[in-house]
């Protein structure tokens, strides 16, 4: 796995952040101030989301035709993802070069170009400034100075990668290529979900969780909780400690791969530790927990692709969980559910049904949203305290089971260094 340096992109650092000291135990501890301090949040936005990272922004099936656009977020910066006339995809920051108004006011649509409403500066689909009304004045008076160089005042253009229909962008022109950024193992899992066949958009679910964005990210690096908290998972065997699993940190720990297998409703040795297992509980409509075996490897997968997204494949529901940090104590999670163009009607139907497991009303995701809220309550005002993450040991090597917090440890080893703590 390549070691990609995460450069310091901002020169001045907020005072408070600079003074924090990490607990001496290192990556087996998480001081709660990483979840509460707004100056740290600011630094994360700059260093991670504006830094040399690839950020998920859209699926290309959301903007199928030339001129189709969609607004998206990278950290707390809004961008516009737009399909150009030649079919390629551009990502530009949604801020007029003149006086900063958002240029695009709709979440989705089709446009030949973008005109800022304020003074009608006009940009082409690449973000180039192509028109400044009254540039030469009116009735011979006013207008822009002769040395005004229109070419310098376009929208900020981002680096863009389209990987099998998933669109990624970066503010940093020096960002390594997407393949290097992911590393081979993560890349193979991305490709597994985006093998190049046409995608079909099923819809969105958006939610706000009053917790730090990293708590959400950690939650998907934590197979240990899933086998204990989620009664629905455990009972119907969708995710259980006694299934063949893997926990693989990637790229110095920033990314993580969580793999398991759906082994159906069962009772084993390990069930006794899963007190929330409900053997007596059964469903009227079994389809909800009966996946069609679409992937030959029969795996169930959760990928945390730093810093902006979780890629989820559970039963037949496929989802991109876009992480949009709002403040140190609030994160928006924006779910895009999708399938493939070649889905059979029956599989299409199952995708919709299985999406009931996930999202703001998901049979299992409700538990997560609720518990993360309670974690933030616990972190608030507890700056002298810290979490302990020693399940599965203290190191950061890949493990071939799920009774471990190795993905979280790896992440904080990376985080600590990247943030300079």
């Amino acid at each position, binding site marked *: 796995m390549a070691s990609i340096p995460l450069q310091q992109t901002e020169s001045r650092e907020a005072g408070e952040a600079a003074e924090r000291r990490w607990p001496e135990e290192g990556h087996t501890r998480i001081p709660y101030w990483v979840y509460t301090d707004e100056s740290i949040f600011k630094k994360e936005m700059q260093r991670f989301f504006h830094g040399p990272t690839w950020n998920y922004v859209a699926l290309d099936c959301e903007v199928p035709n030339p001129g189709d656009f969609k607004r998206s977020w990278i950290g707390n910066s809004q961008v516009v993802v737009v399909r150009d006339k030649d079919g390629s995809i551009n990502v530009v920051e949604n801020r007029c070069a003149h006086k900063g108004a958002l240029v695009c006011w709709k979440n989705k649509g089709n446009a030949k170009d973008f005109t800022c409403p304020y003074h009608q500066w006009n940009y082409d689909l690449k973000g180039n400034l192509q028109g400044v009304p009254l540039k030469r004045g009116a009735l011979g008076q006013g207008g822009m100075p002769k040395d005004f160089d229109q070419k310098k005042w376009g929208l900020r253009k981002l680096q863009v990668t389209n990987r099998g229909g998933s669109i990624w962008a970066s503010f940093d022109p020096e960002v390594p290529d997407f393949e290097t950024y992911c590393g081979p193992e993560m890349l193979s899992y991305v490709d597994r979900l985006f093998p190049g066949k046409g995608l079909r958009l*099923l819809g*969105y679910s958006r939610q706000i969780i009053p917790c730090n964005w990293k708590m959400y990210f950690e939650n998907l690096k934590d197979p240990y909780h899933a086998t204990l908290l989620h009664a629905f998972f455990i009972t119907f065997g969708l995710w259980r400690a006694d299934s063949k699993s893997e926990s693989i940190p990637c790229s110095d720990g920033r990314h993580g791969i969580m793999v398991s297998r759906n082994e159906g409703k069962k009772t084993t040795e390990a069930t006794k530790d899963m007190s929330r297992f*409900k053997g007596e509980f059964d469903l*009227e409509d079994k389809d909800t927990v009966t996946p069609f075996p679409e992937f030959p490897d029969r795996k169930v997968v959760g990928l945390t692709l730093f810093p902006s997204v979780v890629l989820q494949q559970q039963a037949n529901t496929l989802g991109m969980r876009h992480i949009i940090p709002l403040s140190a104590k609030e994160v928006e999670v924006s779910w895009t559910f999708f399938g493939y163009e070649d889905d059979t009607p029956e599989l299409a139907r199952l995708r919709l049904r299985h*999406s009931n497991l996930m999202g703001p009303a998901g049979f299992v995701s409700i538990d997560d*949203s*609720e518990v993360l*809220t309670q974690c933030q309550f616990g972190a608030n005002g507890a700056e002298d305290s810290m979490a302990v993450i020693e399940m599965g040991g203290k190191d950061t090597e890949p493990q071939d089971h799920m009774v471990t917090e190795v993905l979280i440890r790896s992440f904080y080893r990376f985080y600590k260094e990247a943030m300079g703590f």
Partner: protein
Amino acid sequence: MPAETAAKMESGEALDRTELRALKQDLWELYEDYAQACDRQDFQAWTTFFTQDCEYKAISRENFDEALPHATLYCDGLGMVKDRAMALRETAVYEPRHLRHFLSGLRVTSVAGDSIESEANFLVVESMSGRESRIVFVGTYVDRVVRTPQGLKFQSRQAVFDNYRVLVSLVVPI
């Protein structure tokens, strides 16, 4: 009957004003009883408002307007409705909360035999320990109601919420 509403009525056998008002009164009771079951968090009672072949969706206006099939909460058939009720009682983990529905603006958009299409605005206010009460959902029901021997039931109920995003989680059906 207001011209507006009449224009949208696609019924073959148009109702006269009195019949329409009587229908609206029946529907209003159905809507209020449903809201009341949700407010009481009586999930079992909630299942009784649906037909066997029902569809229930709590869906964002964004998805609804774009005709995207995904709904934040989606039940396709009474079995799924009952499974949702049971999961809420038996498996879901969530902080206690109180919810209150407020309804306004019931309108009948179509009548065809025993099948009625109707809509109304909803507002749901949530109260939780240690926090101020707040609006969690606002939007419009888009429904198909049928007459059954057991009274009016929802064959299709879509709670189309305008909210850009769900506040934490959607536990209690809207």
